[in-house]
Structure formats: C-alpha cells, structure tokens
C-alpha cells in the first residue's frame, strides 16, 4: 500500500529520515551565509539558509531539507523545527508555484483589500489558505508588508505588487498563467 502523501511537517516529521542532497554550488552558497557569523555561532545561519536556499530549492520546508540543515549546522533536527515553526514565511507544507500573499492589515483593508481578495479567490476558484488543483497558485492572507502608502498590495513570491486594482490584478494573474 502506498504511503499517504504527507501534507505537513507534523505528518512527516515522524516518518522520514531522508536527507536532502544539494549540488556543490548550492553548498558553496550556504557557506557564504555561514561565513558571516563567528565560527562557533553556526546557528545564526539557520534562518537565512533555510529560507533563502533550502525553501527555494525544495519548494517548502520539508523533512529532508531540515534533516540536511541539522547535519550542516551541527544541530539537532528539533533545533531546526523549533525555529522553523515560529516564522510565518517558512512554508511547512507545499505551496503553489506562485504564492500570492495579500496584505490584510489596516491600511490595505480600508483601501480595498476585501474586494481584491474576493476577486483573486473567485478567479482562481480557491479560498485563502488553499492551492489550486494544478498546483500553480496558493493564496494567503498575511499581515502588514510595509506598503501602506501604496495600498492595497500583495506579494507574489518576493515581488511586490502595489496600488492594486481589479484590472491590474487581472493583468498580473494572466501573466503568470
């Protein structure tokens, strides 16, 4: 019987000892981060490597990536999870290729966020927190992204999209299809 597809770290953390593998170029990139901190303070590189490299390469914070990072930083696997489960930008389950994060905090809220969210969700046929069936889009509602003067706004991946209107949202989504 095939194992059920794990969907979150809590499902998977128990079951997998798999350790991710990375190319020498990626390892070199990790070492660049490590070099910023005193040699006895490797743990400082945990968040930068996990977010900027492992999550980028693996698509999310999966068990194999975490197992690798624990070995790489001479830490326990639980040390990595302890930190990873605190921060909202770590995707502890797979997300779509394009992760649409709509700012829902006050300035965006009063400048039209509800209409933007409604439009995006109905266009993609999902609710906030869900991923489209083809795995292309995930929509999340997130807290303030520091673009209040150009509200409403959203971030797709790391790209800021500001001063949104229904028309510009359509253009942005169409360009990603």
């Amino acid at each position, binding site marked *: 019987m095939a194992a059920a597809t794990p969907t979150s770290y809590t499902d998977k953390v128990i079951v997998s000892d798999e350790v991710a593998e990375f190319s020498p170029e990626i390892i070199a990139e990790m070492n660049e981060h490590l070099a910023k901190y005193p040699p006895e*303070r490797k743990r400082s590189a945990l968040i930068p490597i996990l977010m900027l490299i492992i999550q980028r390469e693996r698509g999310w914070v999966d068990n194999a990536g975490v197992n690798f990072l624990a070995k790489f930083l001479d830490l326990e696997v639980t040390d990595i999870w302890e930190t990873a489960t605190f921060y909202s930008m770590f995707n502890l389950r797979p997300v779509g290729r394009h992760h649409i994060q709509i700012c829902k*905090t006050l300035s965006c809220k*009063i400048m039209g966020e509800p209409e933007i969210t409604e439009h995006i969700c109905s266009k993609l046929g999902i609710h906030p927190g869900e991923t489209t069936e083809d795995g292309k889009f995930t929509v999340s509602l997130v807290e303030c992204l520091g673009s*209040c*003067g150009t509200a409403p706004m959203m971030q797709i991946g790391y790209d800021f999209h500001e001063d949104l209107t229904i028309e510009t949202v359509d253009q942005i989504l169409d360009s990603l299809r």
Partner: protein
Amino acid sequence: MEIKAIGCEPLSLKRVGIQDGHTLKVYQDTGGYVQLKKAFGMSPDEIIQHVKDSALRGRGGAGFPTGMKWSFVPKDSPKPKYIVCNADESEPGSFKDRYLLEYDPHALIEGMIIAGWALKASTGYIYFRGEYNYLIHIMDRALAEARDAGLLGKNIFGSGFDMDIHTHTGAGAYICGEETALLSSLEGFRGHPRMKPPFPAVEGLYACPTVVNNVETLTSIPQILEMGGIAWRDLGTEKSGGTKLWSISGHVKKPGVYELPMGYADMEKFIMEDCGGMLRDNKLKAVIPGGSSVYIMNAGQILGKNVTLDYEGIVEAGSMLGTGGMMVMDETVDVVETTKNLSEFYKHESCGWCTPCREGTDWLVKIFNRISVGEGRPEDAQLLLDICDNIEGKSFCPLGDAAAWPVQSAIKQFPDDFKKWLTKKANGNGIEANI
C-alpha cells in the same frame, strides 16, 4: 505615492528618488563618506557627544535617546562589540525605512561604520524583515561596492580600524522588531524577547555588547556629524531634535513618505493640505499617528487643536509619535472593524512567550469576532477593557501594551461605534451598551 520634504531641506530623503542614488558613485558625488573620513579624526567620545547633543531619538518606535543608548556600551569590555541595524520594519502603517534602504543604502552603511568607530565595534549586521528580500540584494551590492573601495574591511581610511557589515534575513515575525527578540532571531532561535536587564548594550548579540538601532536612526548619523549635533537638533525642537520621516497611508489624496522638521505645525495642516486632504473629500474620522501600536485619535483631538508633530506634541494630544506611521481614516470606516483588524494582527504576531499577551490577544479577537457577527453583548466593551487591563503592563515585552492601547483608545474615543454594535444585540432586547 509622494516622497518629499516639507518645511526643511531633505536630509534623510536627500537621495531618495535620485537616479542611481543607491550607487557608491552617486553617493560620493553627493557628499557621501565625507563624514566617515571626518569621524576618524574625532575621538569616539566626541562623536557620542554630537549624537547626544542632537537629541536624536530612536526612529524605530520606542524613541529612546540614541546618544544615551550608545553611552551604555561598556568601554572596557574585552568582548567583541556589535552594531545591529534593525531593518525589520513591520509596524502597520510604517514604510519609510524601505525607501531609505532602496535608494540610499550607503547612508546606512556610513552611519553604521561611524557607529562602529565610536563604539569600537568591528562587526555590523543589518537585520531585514524577510519580506524585504529585494532590498537585501540592493544592500549586498552596496556592501560589495564599499568593500571594493576600502570603506569596509581592514584599516579603513588608514585609521587602523577594521569593520565589516553583513545582511541577515528574518522570516516573517513582527516581534523581531523588538530589539532583544531580534537578537534571538539573529542567533537562529525563535523570536522571543529576552529579560532586560542586562540590556543589549551590555549583553546583546552572543552575550556581547551590542547597539541595535533603526535604519532611519543610523542614516541620521552622517547628517549629525556634518551639521554638528546642536545645529542638527535645532532643525527640530529642543527635546525632539532634527527631522523625521512620516509614512502616511489610508484615506488621504497624497499618501507617501514625508520628511518634516520635528515640531512641524500642525497635524491638521499636514493631513488637509500637505497630504492633499481627504480622499473623495470625505470627513476625517480617525487618525492613528504613529503606527498601529499607539492610541487612535478622533477628529476632535486634531482639528483646530494645533497638534505639533513631535514626541511631546502628540503625547499632549493624546497619542504617541511611535514610528511616524500615520494612518488616516474617513467617515466611512467603522472603528469596531478597524480595531478588530488590529487585534487580529497582534494575535497573529504575539510570540506566545508570556501568558498575558498570548491569551489576552486571543480573547480580544474572540470577542471582536462575536461582536462583528451581531452577537455582541452589552457588557462586551467593558470586557474588552478588562482584558486590556490584564495585558497592559503585565506582558513580558511591549507587544502586549501595543495590543491593548488601540482597543482601549478606540472604546474611549469612539464609544458610538461600539454602542451601535453592542446595542443592536441579536436578541433584540435593546439594552443600552455599558460603555
């Protein structure tokens, strides 16, 4: 979006919006790194004195005097010392640092090296909020330029002083704007605040003496050396020195980042004239003047009241300057809904370390949720205040206060908005809300 200085020459905004302002060449062509050279001819004490004279107060929200913070660093400590720039800008309503980081990264680098020289710190870190990823790339390029030009590294300008600065990314956590939580995060841990004392100046990063300053604070340092501390202070008022960046958002015609001298008069003129007035010419209802963590003000506290834009003036008017992230709301908003929105923010961002904040923010949201579906009870406003009372001053770090203040002030300044929700209680008995 507008970016401009009003009532003063642009200092912090000098290069914001200038073509290639982020490059070393343009920075040096416009007077950059001259103050660093000058600083190496000054003693650390002289530099700290200028910063004290300037009356510069931390621009990240807490407003602690920067010169005093610097003077807490023990001179005789054998441990390495650190300068950490707090670029974790995540206070709702604040977006000023983003433009400094994008357009003027070298001003921050110069400020950090001067701070490093004054405090004998040879390593600096710039802690970016994770969402500001594109700014990290801009800063990494600026740091590489500075290293190539000998402005960072060994023996800078032949001074015998070595320093390097590195970027560091966060991963999404408002609490990491609190300086001790930021240090926990920089060490690779959950962003939990730490007990003070010891203050970071004595035991900060890796238990070594550390100064944590906001982006705008550090970019002000070269300006202060250029003008001299007292002259810089005199741009503003005696207690609130210099100029300040204000982030304006919400229902105004011209939102943006404005640089104003401290003591600018007044808030009404600023909103109604400088920021173009109210969107759709609606009536002003509410202003949160300093980022979401301060008291909300009603129009009556502002219109005709000559509220000066400095630390003291806004306190006198009943709120706080905070980060200068001003959110303006017109008559179409319902303050119960806007306060619910902020309570959701604080619940999400509470780090969970201490009970009053973790449980209290959760209960605030639970009660707002029932109010917002028409299930509010007449006593709910008092219940919200009671919960706030159990958070305020009782949490481990200021996040708890920041969660309580918007709710307390909303009920105080906008009782009618709450009455409307609480009196039309679903059971239809029309009991007058107890506010």
